[in-house]
């Protein structure tokens, strides 16, 4: 039977030759990602209640990212408990304040094509860019995973999305994601989105993960990209040898998709998603009268090295507008080091940007950079739900790092093509 990539991974994980969409199966979990937000603080009391330990400490990866660095007694206590959990259960893959979990997972080469992974965070879909199944689950289900090493799921349908052609200057993967939220809607539950086409083939991994990360905004089970030489290079760059069968993890050419959508990247213009949902997207130009109090470059999706490069390209020899503040929270410590070494951070700071510690920061109103009542922010993050970044009356516009940086310079929402020639 012809199968899509997600079916093949689920079939392997559930010890079957093939699986049908809609079928309910139990899968063995290869890797479980726990974060400080919904990890030990919620799981450990349950393990105590059950009187059991974890199924395999070597398959658990633990990160601190949402509450770092501690800013009050509560966040300090959550981080302390997270560190104690790592010690108590012998979690060797514990990355403390190394960056945002989804980003660090990729940097460490912990994902391989064909793997079946679960994460206690909705943007675990990020990992699907490596050709593995990686989806988000609530902490209660991650408790089940950590105890049993298994999870049930209904085999999802696959939606194929192809983007072909070259980006215009000032556009990037983020614009694709925002456009897709509008085109496909945010209610694609129990579907997987598989991305392909020449545009994706030409992207580096830090851009590909933007697409799978924001498969969460499409409401999808996960996003997937079939592995290729770029994938293997990224795994090698992390110091890990790819599995011998890595490139075999692809959809069959005659596999059945629920739908196939084809887009022309050459027609893509910079996108902005207006409050209060990512699917409220349209050309950045449509919002050029919106004044900005804060411009934020951060999050798993929007502050990797490639994102900081985009921002710096716009900010070079320019300054942030009076009355607007630019906050930049690099996605990981490695990003921070690389951006320091190549001068990117200097460009950002010289333009007037404020550098924040690495971590989730203001993205979900848990760290530095929270919005006050009625403030307006343009952000390279992935969600702009009401109150997401602070006060209920604040507004968040989502955009690419190019557009966020251009808007910081102008003090109002700005199509970056006005500044990039």
């Amino acid at each position: 039977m012809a199968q899509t990539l997600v079916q093949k991974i689920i079939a392997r994980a559930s010890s079957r030759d093939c699986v049908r969409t809609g079928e309910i199966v139990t899968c063995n979990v290869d890797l479980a990602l726990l974060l400080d937000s919904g990890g030990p603080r919620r799981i450990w009391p349950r393990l105590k209640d059950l009187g059991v330990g974890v199924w395999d400490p070597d398959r658990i990866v633990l990160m601190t990212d949402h509450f770092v660095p501690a800013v009050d007694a509560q966040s300090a206590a959550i981080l302390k408990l997270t560190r104690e959990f790592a010690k108590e259960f012998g979690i060797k893959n514990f990355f403390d304040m190394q960056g945002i979990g989804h980003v660090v997972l990729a940097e460490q080469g912990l994902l391989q094509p064909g793997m079946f992974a679960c994460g206690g965070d909705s943007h675990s879909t990020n990992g699907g860019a490596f050709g593995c199944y990686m989806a988000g689950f609530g902490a209660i289900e991650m408790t089940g995973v950590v105890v049993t090493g298994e999870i049930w799921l209904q085999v999802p349908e696959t939606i194929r999305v192809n983007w072909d052609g070259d980006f215009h200057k000032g556009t990037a993967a983020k614009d694709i994601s925002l456009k897709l939220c509008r085109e496909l809607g945010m209610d694609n539950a129990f579907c997987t989105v598989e991305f392909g086409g020449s545009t994706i083939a030409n992207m580096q991994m830090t851009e590909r993960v933007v697409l799978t990360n924001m498969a969460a905004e499409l409401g999808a089970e996960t996003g997937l990209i079939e592995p290729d030489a770029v994938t293997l290079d990224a795994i090698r760059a992390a110091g890990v040898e790819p599995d011998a069968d890595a490139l075999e993890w692809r959809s069959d050419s005659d596999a059945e998709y629920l739908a196939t959508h084809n887009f022309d990247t050459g027609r893509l213009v910079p996108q902005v998603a207006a409050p209060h949902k990512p699917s409220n997207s349209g050309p950045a130009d449509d919002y050029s009268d919106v004044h900005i109090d804060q411009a934020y470059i951060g999050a798993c999706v929007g502050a990797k090295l490639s994102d900081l490069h985009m921002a710096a390209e716009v900010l070079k020899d320019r300054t942030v507008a009076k009355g607007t503040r630019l906050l930049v929270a690099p996605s990981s410590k490695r990003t921070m080091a690389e951006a320091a070494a190549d001068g990117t951070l200097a460009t950002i700071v010289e333009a007037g940007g404020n550098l924040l510690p690495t971590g989730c920061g203001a993205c979900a109103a848990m760290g530095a950079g929270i919005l006050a009542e009625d403030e307006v922010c343009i952000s390279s993050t992935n969600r702009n739900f009401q109150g997401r970044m602070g006060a209920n009356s604040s507004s968040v516009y989502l955009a690419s790092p190019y557009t966020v940086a251009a808007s910081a310079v102008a003090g109002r929402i700005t199509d970056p093509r006005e500044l990039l020639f």
Partner: protein
Amino acid sequence: MTGVNGNVWVFGDEINTDTMAPGLYFKEPIEVMATHCLEAVNPDFAPNVKSGDIIVAGTNFGMGSAREQAPMALAHLGVGAILAKSFSRIFYRNAINFGLAALIFPQADEIGIGDELVVDSAAGQVKNLSSGVHYEVEAIPAHLVEMIDAGGLMPWLKKTYGKKEQGKGQ
């Protein structure tokens, strides 16, 4: 999970989990978090919802963050069942794991604020006592019945794994 009887709170499409469990209160215990549940959408909800009340909503209920405090806050406030045109995948799974009835209900638009409903999730029955209309809905999927009968994921894990002494790492 069967036999919930309560009054209806109506919500629209795409109610997300950030509004149910706002990040600003994320470090607080569920008792505090719950007082802010859905305040951005309807500030009257948390202070006034009564035990057994029922949420009727549109599409993609619970979209966004995987935070389990979203269904927990609703359960803490006493919400007895959620009827929505569709649910986000993670929210649906979370709710069921807490034993909170989440039923797909295409006729959500026919229900009004304050209507009194009787919901039997095992039998897949919804009765609107205010309008007198009865609805057949999809029952909870069969493979989850054992877990739900046990009272949710935790009681089920306790039953299945709790007795065995497992390795505790190194």
